Structures are given as C-alpha cells and as structure tokens.
C-alpha cells in the first residue's frame, strides 16, 4: 500500500516536472532562440527614379589618423525611415569612400530600425565582440552613429542603440550605453541637402 502511494507520488512529480520542462522549451522557441533577422540591404530602401541626396557621416581617414566628416550620397526614397536606414548604412560603410575607414567594428550590420512618434530612433545592430577595439574607438563609433542620424534628420531627437534586439550595457566592453546616448553636441538636424 505504502509503496504504491510512493510510486504514484513520484509519477505525479515526474509529470509536473515534464510539463514545466516542455513549457520552458516551448517558450525558448518563441523568445530566446529567435532567428536573427536578415540585415537591412540597401537595395531594398529605394527605387530607381529616387533622386540623390547628400548627407554627412563621420569616418576615420587612416592616412592622417583623424576622424573627419565626409559627404555621402543616399537616395531620397519616399519613406523617410528608409532614408534614415540608408544613412546608417552609409555610416557603417564609411560613406563609400575607399580612402576612409568605417568607425564601426568590422562585421557590424544593421538589423532593423524604428522611429517613435517622440523622435527616438531605435537602431538594432549586430556588433561583433572585437578585442581589437578600444574605448576611444567604441566611443567614436557610438558618437558617429548618433551624428549620422541626429545631424541629418531633424525629426530624430535621440538615438537608442540595441545589440541583436536587446538593450546592452556596452557594445564592445568599454563605452557605457543606455543613459548617455545623447551626448553628441550637434546642432538641430537638417533634412538631407538642406
């Protein structure tokens, strides 16, 4: 009698444990292990016939060892958000200038970008953890990204950077993200070409 009760209790506990584990795995399937979105591709952000527009982005010019602001061409797509995404891509690609180098760590991609009604641009990046990236470089990278958006688009009031869809304390280990994202002392943004 006693043995049967014990077996039943054990079976009951196993069933509860199994249910918990099944639920946990199911939740992981919906959340933690989400596949990464495909990086934003420039070709999908404009159509032929869209006029060019000039923006300005910060790049590193290795020959002089300086960060400089260079012009870059984007397309004046109908969607303002698509123009902003092009700006981020132009920044990540060093304005397409072969003599310049991007301030971003190698392999950084833009996953997605949103703009809230209050003017916060949420930029979701995938930033590889690069040990060959120092504090000043990381700070310049973040400041450059802020600059690429705040300086070129008047409707953007602040920039929030996400790494693989998540809020992150730091991108590569030194610069503190989160509460200090708006340090770039830029004048109010302008529309491209204005």
């Amino acid at each position, binding site marked *: 009698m006693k043995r049967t009760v014990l077996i039943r209790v054990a079976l009951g506990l196993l069933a509860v444990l199994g249910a918990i584990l099944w639920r946990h795995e199911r939740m992981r399937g919906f959340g933690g292990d989400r596949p990464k979105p495909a990086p934003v591709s420039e070709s999908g952000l404009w159509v032929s016939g869209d006029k060019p527009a000039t923006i300005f982005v910060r790049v*590193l010019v*290795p020959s002089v*060892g*300086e*960060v400089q602001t260079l012009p870059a061409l984007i397309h004046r797509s109908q969607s303002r958000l698509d123009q902003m995404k092009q700006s981020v891509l132009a920044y990540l690609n060093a304005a397409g200038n072969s003599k310049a*180098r991007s301030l971003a760590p190698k392999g950084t991609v833009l996953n997605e970008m949103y703009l*809230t009604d*209050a*003017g*916060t641009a949420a930029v979701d990046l995938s930033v590889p953890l690069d*040990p*060959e*990236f*120092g*504090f*000043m*470089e990381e*700070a*310049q990278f973040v*400041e450059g990204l*802020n600059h690429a958006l*705040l300086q070129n688009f008047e409707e*953007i*009031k*602040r920039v*929030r950077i996400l790494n693989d869809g998540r809020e992150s*304390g*730091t991108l590569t*280990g*030194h*610069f*503190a*993200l*989160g*509460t*200090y*994202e*708006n*340090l*770039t*002392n*830029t*004048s*109010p*943004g302008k529309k491209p070409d204005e």
Partner: protein
Amino acid sequence: MRRSLLGAALACLCLLARPLAAGTRIAVDAGHGGGDKGSVAGSQVEKDWTLKFTKALTQSLTSAGYDVTAVRVKDDLIPYDKRFEILNTAGAAVALILHADRESTGKTRGPFFVVQPPQSGTPASDEGLPEAGSLPLSRYKQSLQLARQLALATGVSPKFSPLSDPRALAGDVSSPDGRILAVPHQSLRYIALPAVVIEPLFLTNPEDLELFGTDAAIQAFAQKITQGLGAYLRGEGK
C-alpha cells in the same frame, strides 16, 4: 599648567604636521582580468597593463601614507557588479581605475583621463530625456558629481604632456587639450564617489610602449598620479 599648555600646543602641531594622506583611503581598480582581456593589440593585452599600473600605483600611494583598497590584485575576472560594490563600500575618498586604450592608426598617444557625464535617466520611455545637443561640457559642471570628478581628473592630470593627437570626440565633451573626456565609461557607470578612469597609454602606439617599457617608468607615472591626487585632496587647483 604651563607644562600642560605646552603639551597641548605640541599635540596641535603634531596634528597639523600629520600628512593629509594618513587615514585617507584610495580605491584602485585594474580594468578587465581573467577571461576578459580588454583591448588587444598584437602581443599587448590591456588586462596585463592595467594590473602593472595598478600595482605601481598601489605601491606609490602606500608609500605616500594612503590606505589603499585594490579591487583586482591578480589575473582574475571580477564581475562589474562586484567591482562597484567594493569601490562604493571601501570608505574611499576617491576611486582610480586603470585602463589602456588602442586605436587603429597607431598614432594616438596617452595619457588621457575619463570622467562620467551626468546620467540622464533610464530611457525606458521618451519622457525626461534631454534633447540632443543640450549637454556640452560647460553644462556638465552644473552636476555636482561631475564637478567633483572633473576636479579629480584635473588634479591628477596636469603633470602630463598633452595628447599628441587629442582626436576629441566632439569639442564639448573634452577639455581644451583633449586630455580629459566626459564620456560614459562602463567602469564608472555605478560609482558614487569621485572617480576617474586613467588611460596611461595606447597599446597601438610604439612610443607609448617604449616609454613604459620599464618598471621605473611605470612607477614614475604612478608617482605623478599620487602627487596630483595629493594636490586635489588639499583642494589645490579648484
């Protein structure tokens, strides 16, 4: 009566002559460690340099009479929350945190110093965040915490030559010579006492590596920091 007055006067003189350093605790921390190497440039690894400088600074401060709390004393990984807990509860007057930087051109030289700009609040919503462009360095001085940190950074830094290439991030977040930056650093995120990140060198700069190629040179750097700290604690240069 006369003898007791003389004794009291002597006691007062002894108290006045007592070095300021005695009884003053300084917290020092070597950035990174263990599996967290920090920045790497060829064979140069940031965590090793930060430990070298921290050991020299600990020795220099101790020799000057300070009590020292060193957070990391060997090559091990201490999580940030543990570091912040130690630094904030050590009873220290200030915290000095050592890092070393790198950059791709190899031209930039140290040293430089980093203080934390004022927090603008957690951006959980758009409410309460400052507008872009509203925080130049001159306005940071309105923050008491930043003012204390700037005073500390200014105190420990003046005995060094300016950066060869300031590469200021933006004019308003750096001092005119580019040596002190008010830029958010992960090591300063949750520190409640006056604190400064000291970056003595760039691992990518050959001159910096040569300059600090001997223990004596590192010790000399630590002594300059100690002297500057003394001036700060005496209230000079405010």
